[in-house]
């Protein structure tokens, strides 16, 4: 199977930094659909009378087929590598079909001990794999558990293909009239099919909708009776043809105009949020930035831009720009720009959204706006900028590039000076933890499968992130409890590539779904979890202390309700009890290198490993 993600399409470089125009356009056009939708993998997998390119409609004549076997026939073409499951009676038909009809292969069942784990694993998995996994959960009680993970995926523009077992002809406490209703405010599409034919059409549509920009979770409620029915012999069933959508690319005239704005700008800055969705996207952003010698500010919701690139800037630089181009960054506001500066945007946000949850923030008052998929639009924008950039501007472009590089150098030195403060202290300095880890992973093929905004961003500041799979970005919703299971999902996607997965794990987030440990051990998902154990919900402690101080009241009591101490949690013991290699608590910096070495050895032998590192709060 060809990897649809993470592989930049062939581009013929004619010399440093330039691309042969014709091959460039060809490559850009070719990537469009495939990279956006994971279509390559989908098409490559469909067999049995299905042509390469798009899946053809297939007719099946029943020989007394079980309904759920047919459902799997339909889902086969979506090539789900995994299906997370928390078992329940209303999906017994489907589960049995996966086990015996599919042989537990494509999809392979992954046992989650909580439905939030099942969906959040799908979230992390997509951010490495570029295609969704399926999650099979109980439509009533199970979906209630899963809800926050669905919301996080929605906010993060991540498709998870959610199947709900339900029973509509037998009202009881676990059956529900309209199962997907509970998450309709934060999913893109859902259906509750009434017949197998209806299921087939909706199953393919759900995949298509989920994978079209803006990508999002979808839900199918699958009735128990439908799963368990026997299709009468001789009855014909159809698997509808699936045609992946090419992603919406920016209107050529608008792209031309935007290129002119960029070329004319004195000090342009790119703001990037969920801009790249593959290695190709990352490389396009680098190419555009280098072509213009524009600064780049990254909120790191995706692995958009290399962490050590000299054009990487901090948000304060927006104030110096005369033009900011926001790439899938719909909340960047004019108030962060200097007066008179222009704000342009390419974003898919307005192509689809929901209204009830205010994840969208304030309306972005941009001066020029293209509603499109960023990655699909960048090739033509790069091409236009290259065409329009006059020779006479070259030296000015070079000079501003040097200015950005100098700012970047100063920022990095300042960070290193911060990192050195308290270098030898106990509990551990979080910069020290990140640096000690980097020392031992930097020559390996690694992937940070957690958020990078914990531990005061030290991993992002000190490590050399330059590949799309180096980082899965942040959580989307900022809902605590996302990180632990999402990291296991991302590690699951990385497993076949043999990448060393690192999870920097906050203690508070961890304790929402500690059973995730068991899932990783049971399914032999190797990864190294390093605790940011400050024995607290420290973000909240900071806020509450501040509140007390502002009210001239007792600050010393403000751990009440926010500490995770007394008793201190034994994370290493907990991990060992669920099949992990674990060490800790580790409080002294001199104990770190040996512990990291032993833990990596365990991971490289196929076992997940945890280090309980006791740290400063931030």
């Amino acid at each position: 199977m060809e990897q649809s993600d993470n592989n930049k399409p062939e581009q013929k470089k004619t010399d440093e930094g330039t691309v042969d125009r014709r091959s460039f356009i060809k490559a850009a056009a070719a990537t469009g659909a495939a990279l956006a939708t994971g279509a390559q993998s989908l098409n490559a997998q469909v067999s049995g009378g299905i042509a390469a390119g798009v899946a053809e409609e297939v007719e099946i004549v029943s020989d007394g087929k079980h309904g759920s076997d047919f459902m799997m026939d339909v889902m086969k073409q979506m090539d789900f590598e995994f299906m997370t499951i928390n078992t329940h009676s209303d999906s017994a038909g489907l589960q049995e079909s996966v086990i015996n009809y599919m042989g537990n292969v494509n999809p392979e069942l992954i046992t989650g001990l909580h439905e939030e784990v099942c969906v959040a694993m799908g979230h992390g998995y997509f951010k490495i794999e570029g295609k969704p996994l399926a999650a099979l959960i109980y439509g009533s009680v199970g979906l209630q558990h899963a809800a926050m993970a669905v919301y996080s995926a929605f906010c993060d523009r991540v498709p998870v293909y959610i199947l709900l077992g339900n029973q509509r002809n037998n009202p009881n406490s676990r059956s529900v009239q309209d199962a997907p209703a509970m998450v309709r405010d934060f999913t893109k599409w859902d259906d509750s099919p009434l017949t197998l034919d209806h299921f087939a059409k909706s199953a393919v549509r759900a995949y298509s909708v989920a994978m079209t920009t803006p990508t999002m979770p979808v839900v199918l409620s699958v009735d128990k009776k439908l799963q368990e029915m026997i299709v009468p012999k001789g009855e014909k069933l159809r698997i509808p043809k699936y045609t992946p959508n090419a992603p919406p690319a920016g209107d050529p005239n608008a792209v031309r105009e935007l290129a002119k704005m960029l070329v004319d700008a004195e000090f342009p800055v790119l703001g990037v949020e969920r801009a790249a969705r593959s290695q190709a996207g990352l490389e396009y952003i680098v190419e555009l930035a280098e072509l213009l010698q524009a600064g780049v500010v990254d909120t790191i919701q995706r692995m958009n831009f290399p962490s050590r690139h000299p054009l990487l800037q901090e948000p304060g630089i927006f104030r110096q720009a005369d033009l900011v181009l926001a790439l899938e960054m719909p909340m960047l506001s004019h108030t962060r720009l200097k007066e008179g500066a222009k704000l342009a945007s390419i974003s898919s946000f307005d192509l689809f959204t929901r209204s009830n949850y205010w994840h969208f923030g304030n309306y972005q008052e941009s001066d020029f706006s293209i509603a499109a998929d960023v990655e699909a639009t960048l090739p033509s924008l790069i091409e236009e900028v290259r065409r329009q950039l006059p020779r006479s501007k070259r030296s000015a472009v070079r000079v501003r590039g040097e200015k950005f590089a100098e700012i970047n150098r100063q920022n990095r030195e300042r960070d290193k000076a911060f990192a050195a403060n308290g270098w030898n202290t106990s509990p551990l300095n979080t910069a020290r933890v990140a640096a000690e880890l980097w020392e031992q992973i930097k020559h390996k093929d690694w992937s940070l499968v957690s958020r990078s905004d914990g531990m005061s961003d030290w991993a992002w500041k000190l490590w050399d992130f330059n590949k799309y799979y180096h980082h899965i970005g942040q959580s989307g919703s900022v809902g605590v409890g996302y990180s632990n299971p999402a990291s296991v999902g991302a590690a699951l996607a990385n497993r076949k590539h043999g990448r060393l997965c690192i999870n920097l794990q906050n203690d508070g987030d961890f304790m929402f779904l500690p059973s995730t440990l068991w899932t990783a051990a049971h399914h032999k998902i190797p990864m190294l979890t390093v605790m940011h154990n400050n024995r607290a919900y420290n973000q909240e402690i900071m806020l509450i202390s501040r509140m007390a101080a502002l009210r001239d009241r007792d600050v010393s009591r403000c751990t009440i309700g926010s500490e995770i101490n007394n008793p201190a949690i034994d994370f290493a013991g907990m991990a060992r009890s669920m099949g992990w290699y674990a060490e800790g608590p580790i409080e002294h910096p001199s104990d770190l290198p040996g512990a990291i070495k032993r833990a990596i050895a365990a991971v490289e032998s196929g076992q997940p490993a945890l280090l309980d590192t006791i740290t400063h709060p931030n």
Partner: protein
Amino acid sequence: MNNKKTPWLIFNLVTLLLLTGIQVVQAQTAEERGKQAIVTYMCYGCHGFTADGGQTDVAPRINVDRLSVEAMMAYTRNPGGRMPPYRTEEQIPDQALRDIYAYLKSLPPSPKWQDIPLLND
């Protein structure tokens, strides 16, 4: 045992305990008290246990080499930026602030980043 003597014995024992107790308290150095005060008064939540600075954009290092004890105390009572104001003696006594200062002064200086191989890769 003489019953009349019992109250005296208890009185003496209590006095002894109190005195040794007080002595123990007094035996604690300003540095030791300061280390505890950083936790008690929640400074650590933002600045870290050794006040080396928390998140770079949240709380800076308290640099006692550049800051006098008076300046640190004055700033704590009436800070700028996002630092919460500890305006009253009830919120943090002057003595605790002096102890914290003494503790921070007593800490060995951090190495320079240029001298740390891990920060020069």
